């Protein structure tokens, strides 16, 4: 074959392929809810050496997270896939919320802008569970990125929540004076009796409580 003919053939082939790719991108339907960037984030490893001691307040700056470009699925997710994605991401948030490292906090905060509202709400709760005041700026900043009143309130409440001392903090659990101890002992005796009664009642109830057999034919009244 002549070189000119070969070159022309290559050029035509390249043009055809380029046009095909261009129209495929233009015409491909977008997913109903594109998965968020954080979907691609790996769950951080546990850091038991960083485990929070009792009464410790977590304070550190979240490390920057490399956020990959938004992943556009070749095919749109169906409702089942969206549900599965939400479950998976919520589960990851749960895991991150029990950790005590900057990467976990950064991963939680990145989900404050997730495309799925339920994931964003789970991220707000995860931030509260993580318990670091370092999340406050990100929570407040996210208020402006949503028009959803419920979400705005949740973000502000979470920011307030994280600004409070916790029930386990040392300045809350302060030692008592002798008078306070005496009064407390009196009251504690009464409470112990009440708790014992409640505990026995629950134990008895759970061991003896009859319940109707499930009837698959029964039509619930609602």
């Amino acid at each position, binding site marked *: 074959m002549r070189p000119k003919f070969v070159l022309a053939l290559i050029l035509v082939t390249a043009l055809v392929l380029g046009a095909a790719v261009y129209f495929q991108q233009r015409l491909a339907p977008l997913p109903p809810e594109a998965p968020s960037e954080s979907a691609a984030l790996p769950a951080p490893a546990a850091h038991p050496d960083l485990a929070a001691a009792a*009464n410790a307040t977590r304070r550190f700056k979240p490390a920057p997270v490399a956020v990959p470009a938004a992943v556009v699925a070749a095919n749109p997710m169906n409702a089942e896939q969206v549900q599965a994605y939400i479950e998976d991401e919520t589960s990851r948030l749960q895991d991150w919320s029990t950790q005590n490292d900057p990467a976990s906090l950064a991963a939680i905060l990145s989900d404050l802008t997730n495309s799925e509202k339920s994931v964003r709400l789970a991220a707000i*709760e995860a931030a509260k569970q993580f318990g670091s005041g370092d999340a406050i700026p990100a929570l407040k900043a996210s208020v402006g990125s949503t028009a959803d009143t419920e979400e705005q309130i949740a973000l502000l409440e979470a920011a307030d929540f994280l600004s409070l001392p916790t029930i386990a903090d040392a300045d809350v659990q302060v030692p008592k004076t002798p008078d*306070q101890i005496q009064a407390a002992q009196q009251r504690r005796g009464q409470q112990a009796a009440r708790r014992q009664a409640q505990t026995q009642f629950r134990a008895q109830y759970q061991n003896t409580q009859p319940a109707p057999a499930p009837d698959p034919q029964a039509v619930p009244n*609602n």
Partner: protein
Amino acid sequence: MMVRAAFAAVVALGAATTYAAPAAYPTIPLSISGTLKYTTNSGDTMNVPIKTLSYNTQSLINLLNASPDATNVLHFVTGKTQIPAGSHFLWNPDYEELIITNKNGFSFDLYGSYTNGGTTYYYDFGYLDIDDEGLIGTYDLAAKTLAGTEKDMTGIYFYFYDGSMNNNEIDIYGKATLTWTYGAAKGGSQKATLSVTMSGNGNDDCYVNDFEAIPGTFSASGSGSGTVSTGMVPFYWEW
């Protein structure tokens, strides 16, 4: 408090736990948080401010770990002297107990018993009841596949006590919304996904460091999936 005994099966949740638990409704990770208001004014001193504090799963676990009574029970029940870092609550709408667990197999039910020297001791550091008899619900299931959704609302009662001399106790009434998604039935069972949100501020008896306290907010949320028998769907039941 409810136990649907007809659905129940004995599940060993640790050597010390001796009561029945349901077989199949999803047991879900539950994140608990809230605020309390209290004052350290034990007398009639003027201008002692009312303080607000927060609690979440970790701070409740920290209280238990700081409590000699709780850690003593913990040691009898689990062999551990502290609740490990990274632990969280598990909750089941039928079982209603709060279990602290982690990924390494640790499991500590906040309510239970243990035997020492031939004597059985009961303990109670917390639970989260739902009012099944006051449950209202609505559901929509496909006739052929039984796939569908359900939404229930009911009252709750949350109890936490750290067992310590410091006396930290939270007793709160509130409400819960249970949102169910059911997959298509297959072989007499189907996938059930449960998402729970709870809120509350109804005070029963709250103490912070032995000072009277009043609940400000309470919230609990979580979600998870399991496989249920078709006879267990919907969860809603008119008692």
